[in-house]
């Protein structure tokens, strides 16, 4: 489950999935990063990796690098107008990023199976390559 940390004016969203796995999916199964509605027609939310992190109501872009000790994908957003009181700051962040966090959590639940599928395919391809 994704988490949010507030450090001074920085808001850091840390995904449960590693940045390497996110990049792997983006490369081989980009459609898996789109959360669709029940009919599978409309994209409700999408995630990707990019140069810098951002969150809108339509999706989240994770930073292209991570300093997380477990190499999890992160989004860093500067919020200079956060209230000084911790409770008020938390309430404001929950209000602004709560919906996005719910969508990220739903996607995270689906992605490990995609990574496993890609790794299985990759292993089969590697086994089929003969170096002479």
């Amino acid at each position, binding site marked *: 489950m994704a988490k949010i940390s507030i450090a001074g004016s920085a808001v850091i969203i840390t995904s449960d999935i590693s940045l390497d796995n996110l990049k792997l999916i983006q490369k081989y199964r980009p459609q898996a990063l789109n959360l669709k509605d029940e009919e599978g027609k409309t994209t409700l939310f999408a995630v990707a990796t990019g140069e810098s992190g*951002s969150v809108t109501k339509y999706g989240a872009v994770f930073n292209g690098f991570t300093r997380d000790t477990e190499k999890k994908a992160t989004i860093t957003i500067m919020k200079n107008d956060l209230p000084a009181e911790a409770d008020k700051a938390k309430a404001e962040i929950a209000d602004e990023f709560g919906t996005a966090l719910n969508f990220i959590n739903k996607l995270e639940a689906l992605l490990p199976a995609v990574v496993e599928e890609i790794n299985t395919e990759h292993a089969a391809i590697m086994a089929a390559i003969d170096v002479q």
Partner: protein
Amino acid sequence: MIKVTIGNSLGRTEYMLTPTTTIRQALEQAEIDYARGGVSLDGCPLQSNDLDKTFADKGITEKCFLLQVVKADNA
């Protein structure tokens, strides 16, 4: 992510793109032949040197419309 509605007179499709996607990449992803007519971003006509600018460069942060108007040969 930015919700970009890309299309022409035949139809429109929504794409979720990163702010660093260029307008050219977006049009190519949507298989729009941008050499056949003018392209507008939120109603404003784009110049050819806008194609390699990103949505962030154009100040788009959340959603926009990227539409092509094909000029008919006899128009």
